[in-house]
């Protein structure tokens, strides 16, 4: 039995090496085949992509098996696991460390390559061969990185009896979903990159290219949205003070590709519908993946101090920097030579959807640049100006927020303008009511709130404006008829239209949630004795007791706090302070009552010298709207993706459907 398990590890290792070899072949042969017009050589790409994925999948399964069975002869398992750890964290622990997470990265990278092979039937053979070849070149770089610097299959000569356990902060269901979704997003953008490079090599970008590249970008952006939202939510409940975004370098690393991908999504529509903005769209596709790689560099190298620093190493960072330089440098050089060949066709007037989308792209790109310069400025200042300084949330709040406000103001207008030549009158007429409502809601919010905060009312106004704009856009599309008939027509609108409306509504909801929670949250910090009752806002809290308990791999101090509203008990909360002896690390587990209108967030602190416990209570209004909005954005992407126009292979389906009546 033990012998078999041993062999299995080595087989996983060999599978990874074999996948590396196949990636090299897939990088070279189809590309040469595409140049020479050799169909057999081009056709090699598809089975190669599939086999590459299966081999990587096997290696990943083997590593997971080693974690599940606590095979401490593997160094990685020894360093990051423990027999007492609950099973779910044994599994998620596979990617709760550098080597394992790189293997997950590879698994997803090869999965995307395989998907392009499986679902790319509608693509011209030559373009598909080139796309798969470029995709394989990315895989080659990262396979080399994994095998030579971050090999997860390194053995220990003498297996220890037990492991060192996983960082307790990572022992959370959040780890099960947050990294995989983020990686699906990061790596998904490699497909957009491959399409861009393949198009540059072909020297041709047309409406069809726009239609092919969009589903991949959309999928990557959707996953990134979900990944970022999950991470934000995780930080909110895990880190113990209910913040949802810290402008930490690692968060910024995921936010930059998100912003660029959002811009790319929109500009690809212009390519698809109007054959304009071609070279700009290609540039965005290159930059989006460039920022993904930059993110990988920031996370892995540790050049920027971050609260996420759990797996960094300067030497590895250097290698990722080289990968980044080669791919981004190569792509931009190719772009410089070939972009001139991409002839733009569409013409449009100053007031048009095209112009609106250009403004969208400008605002998204510049806001990405704000995040970028703020993130790297400490490095630049230290290297060039010999100043050791910090760039923190106050900078980003001040420099980033105005661009988001501008996007929110412009969005309803831009999204309603007609292609090619629009009029402001049509949009203004449709939006006037919503504008009045937005101002009225802001005034109402200002009147109700305590204090003179401008942030809350502004957030309300922008939220209503953006949501209303999306609804007005749907309404105006239904033409002129009775209300019932118009509603029926709206229900029958293409899914892409529904996707657009849903995503924009999500954006409005998130803006509102962020502003409302930031402006109106209440906090209370105090020393409470057991049995004491006190009120915060409209709620009363009572500390009923504090108990010492034992968890599977930790000790915990658990408070029992009941929450009352008048005479009615709203809930019973059990905030904890945990101690993980193996990792020798304390953590705070907040207790939260989630609500649509507010979250009640309770944290227990240390026992005080004169008796009693430090207790922190936050009332966080509309907190869940922040992530709810993000989920709506992702759902919008889902709708859009399911539109038959974008569905991969839809064109061939249409062709065969047409063929039937002809017979």
């Amino acid at each position, binding site marked *: 039995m033990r012998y078999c398990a041993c062999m299995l590890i080595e087989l996983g290792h060999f599978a990874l090496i074999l996948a590396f070899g196949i990636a090299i072949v897939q990088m070279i042969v189809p590309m040469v085949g595409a140049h020479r017009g050799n169909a057999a050589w081009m056709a090699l790409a598809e089975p190669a992509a599939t086999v590459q994925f299966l081999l990587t999948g096997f290696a990943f399964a083997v590593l997971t098996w080693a974690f599940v069975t606590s095979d401490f002869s593997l160094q990685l398992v020894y360093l990051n696991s423990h027999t007492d750890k609950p099973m779910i964290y044994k599994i998620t622990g596979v990617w709760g460390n550098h080597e394992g997470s790189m293997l997950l990265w590879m698994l997803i990278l090869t999965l995307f390559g395989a998907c392009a092979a499986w679902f790319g039937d509608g693509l011209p053979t030559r373009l598909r061969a080139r796309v798969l070849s470029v995709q394989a070149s990315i895989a080659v770089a990262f396979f080399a990185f994994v095998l030579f610097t971050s090999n997860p299959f390194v053995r220990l000569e003498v297996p220890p009896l037990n492991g060192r356990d996983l960082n307790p902060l990572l022992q959370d269901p959040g780890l099960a979903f947050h990294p995989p979704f983020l990686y699906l997003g990061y790596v998904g953008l490699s497909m957009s990159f491959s399409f861009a490079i393949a198009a540059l090599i072909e020297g041709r970008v047309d409406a069809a290219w726009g239609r092919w590249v969009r589903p991949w970008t959309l999928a990557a952006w959707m996953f990134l949205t979900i990944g970022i939202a999950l991470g934000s939510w995780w930080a909110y409940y895990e880190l113990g003070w209910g913040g949802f975004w810290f402008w930490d370098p690692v968060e910024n690393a995921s936010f930059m590709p998100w912003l660029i991908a959002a811009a790319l999504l929109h500009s690809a529509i212009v390519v698809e519908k109007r054959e304009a903005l071609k070279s700009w769209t290609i540039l965005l596709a290159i930059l989006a993946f460039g920022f993904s790689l930059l993110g990988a560099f920031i996370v892995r190298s540790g050049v920027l*101090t971050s609260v996420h620093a759990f797996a960094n190493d300067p030497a590895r960072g250097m290698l990722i920097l080289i990968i980044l330089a080669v791919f981004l440098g190569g792509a931009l050089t190719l772009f410089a030579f070939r972009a001139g060949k991409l002839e733009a066709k569409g013409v449009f007037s100053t007031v048009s959807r095209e112009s609106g989308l250009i403004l969208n792209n*400008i605002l998204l790109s510049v806001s990405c*640049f704000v995040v970028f310069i703020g993130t790297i400025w400490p490095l630049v200042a230290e290297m060039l100006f010999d100043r050791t*300084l*910090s760039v923190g949330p*106050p*900078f980003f*709040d001040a*420099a980033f927020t105005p661009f988001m406000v501008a996007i929110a103001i412009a969005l309803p207008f831009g999204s309603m303008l007609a292609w090619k030549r629009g009029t402001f009158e049509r949009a203004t007429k449709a939006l006037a009511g919503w504008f009045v409502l937005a101002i009225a809601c802001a005034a109402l919010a200002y009147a109700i709130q305590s204090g003179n905060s401008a942030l809350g009312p502004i957030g309300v106004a922008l939220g209503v404006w953006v949501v209303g704009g999306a609804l007005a856009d749907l309404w105006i599309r239904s033409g002129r008829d009775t209300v019932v008939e118009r509603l029926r027509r709206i229900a029958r609108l293409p899914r892409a239209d529904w996707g657009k409306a849903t995503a924009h509504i999500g954006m409005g909801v998130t803006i509102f949630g962020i502003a409302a929670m*930031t402006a109106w949250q209440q906090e209370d910090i105090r020393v409470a004795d057991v049995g004491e009752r006190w009120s915060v806002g409209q709620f009363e809290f009572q500390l009923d007791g504090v108990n010492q308990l034992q968890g599977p791999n930790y000790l915990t101090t658990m408070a029992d706090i009941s929450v009352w509203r008048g005479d009615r008990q709203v809930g019973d909360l059990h905030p904890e302070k945990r101690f993980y002896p193996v990792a020798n690390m304390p953590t705070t587990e907040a207790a939260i009552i989630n609500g649509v209108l507010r979250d009640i967030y309770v944290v227990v602190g240390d026992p005080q010298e004169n008796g009693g416990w430090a207790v922190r209570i936050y009332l966080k209004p509309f907190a869940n709207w922040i992530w709810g909005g993000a989920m709506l954005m992702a759902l919008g992407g889902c709708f859009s993706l399911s539109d038959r126009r974008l569905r991969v292979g839809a064109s061939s389906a249409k062709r065969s459907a047409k063929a039937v009546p002809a017979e």
Partner: protein
Amino acid sequence: MKRLLIIVMLLASPLWAVEPSEMLDDPVLEDRARALSQGLRCPVCRNESIDESNAILAKELRIVLRERISDGDTDRQAVDFLVARYGEYVLLRPDARGANLILWLAAPALFLIALGIGWSTIRTKRAAPAGLSDEEKAELEKILRS
């Protein structure tokens, strides 16, 4: 307006590690101390303000800050006191002096440039049809009208 937004954000930002025993009795002074401490970085932590941090140094700095404020320092004096000892590294909001002007002005400058490029793109797009023949123009008009 922008300034107000920032101030509001600062005031409303969440906290973590302020302990009840450290807090000042005067709520006005305490609010000032909280707002300031959220803009000061803990020198020994990874990327946290002294308001959020659990580190002992952060706790000491919170207490020092409150002492200065209680002794009648203005916000600026209290912050300068810490900057003089720990350097501008502790400022989470870098000042807009010297090279930092690049940090603050780069994005607005880029925005203006991008607007310029965007505008000229739109103008050339608009100008393009002028080069068409009358026949093509008529067809274009037809398409535009539909």
